[in-house]
């Protein structure tokens, strides 16, 4: 369950930064991304998938959250 900092890039897209690994990826898709909640399964541009229980109301970015890796 790594801590991940989510922040916006200049184009308004979301970035996924794992401080421990010094890895930064762009988020390709988020399962729930609405005015009520944010989270669920998150897919990165490198194809890896991560999970977080949906947060409601959506958090303000940048923020650090804990994600689980989705296997398979």
């Amino acid at each position, binding site marked *: 369950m790594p801590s991940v*900092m989510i*922040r916006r890039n*200049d184009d308004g897209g979301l970035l996924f*930064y794992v*401080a421990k690994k*010094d*890895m*930064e990826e762009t988020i390709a898709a988020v399962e729930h991304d609405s005015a009520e909640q944010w989270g669920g399964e998150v897919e990165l*541009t*490198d194809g890896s998938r991560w999970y977080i229980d949906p947060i409601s109301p959506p958090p303000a970015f*940048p*923020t*650090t959250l804990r994600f689980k890796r989705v296997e398979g």
Partner: protein
Amino acid sequence: MATLSREEAQALIQEVLEVYPDKAKKDRAKHLAVNDPSIDQSKKCITSNRKSQPGVMTIRGCAYAGSRGVVWGPVKDMIHISHGPVGCGQYSRGGRRNYYVGLTGVNSFGTMNFTSDFQERDIVFGGDKKLDKLISEIETLFPLSKGISVQSECPIGLIGDDIEAVSKKKGKELNKPVVPVRCEGFRGVSQSLGHHIANDAIRDWVLHRRDTDNSFEQTPYDVCITGDYNIGGDIWPSRLLLEEIGLRVVAQMPGDGTVSEMELIPKVKLNLVHCYRSVNYLARHLEEKYGIPWMEYNFFGPTKIAESLRKIAARFDETIQANAERVIEQYRAQYEAVIAKYRPRLEGRKVMLYVGGLRPRHVIGAYEDLGMEVVGTGYEFAHNDDYDRTIKEMGDATLLYDDITGYELEEFVKRVRPDLIGSGIKEKYIFQKMGIPFRQMHSWDYSGPYHGYDGFSIFARDMDMTVNNPCWSMMQAPWLKSAADDSSAMAASA
């Protein structure tokens, strides 16, 4: 010099790798690549931030070097203790030329060297008592120091000293920041982790110190410069430019920086990051905790300076934007004269770089302004995100090399025969003896500053005097020269 095609460059890499045993070959192959600017993710072509191969010549440093030498070292009003045996500090002293103003030994300590000089008994019985005593001694001898950092060398982590407890106690006693930094050399694969650890120490021990104090008067134009090390005075022309466009530089860090400036960083409106590699951790924290946005900029060469000034100004109002245009215009005559003078002498010359931090990509623009072309570049301790940023700056089919070994670099150079190499002191004499002009690009070969428009004039002059130095035509010993060489040399000197 021959420009390599993509196939030739690939073949060159294969040929160079041939001498290695299979396992090493497999590993090193991942670190060498031919650039393809259309790729947007560097990890598809190059691997970085991995442990170096045993047995090869690498020029990386350790985590202690990254923290003591790079991030903390230039903070001039603090005393940085190299905590452990004497060697780490002694052998690394004074290499980086971080210029500063102040009275050394009174209120500034940049070029001084402090160590706890561990002896056998400190290793056996622990060195915490010694550290305690040492800090009191420092306070007596240098009462105007504004803080102390404890930079751990390898043994500290091995013997399990509690430097945090000592630092806390002494910090209270002296009412100054005493910062323990767990940057033991064995951590991580290069100095890069030292930067990270040093950033975290600044976050945990310095930044929050004025959180509840609102006495500092703020303006909407407050910015800070982070990740500029003031090598040869770099930060001064950078600061000048930002002030000329109407911004107020509240803090500069670490070059010519102070603790009180660092404590003010959380109060700025925008964080300007020059060396992304070594301070991005701090920038991310500042954004998350204090909501301070950050952006990277590049003050090498007029093209990149203008681009950066416009990008910075775009974050502010129209006055600042108009100022930026005015400043660019104001310097136009100056930099155009530099280009007019040096470009004809440097046009078309090829450059290979192998340095660290931001330079392998940031100086490309400055070379291009002079009509030169960077045909190979690489980092000692970069991560993927650095190569992401580099790929776009480099031309197609140029060479990229990560943590390159001494052997590989020599072989590349022998084939590519660039007109100039920019790398470190350990490479300098090898390549000079091969007859190739060389600039030591870690500390600007005892020159500088290179940032800003003023720095560009110096950069251009330095490159010219290196590349066009008459000594390169005198590489052959006189008694080895044939009669034909002789007469042509005579003609040239006449």
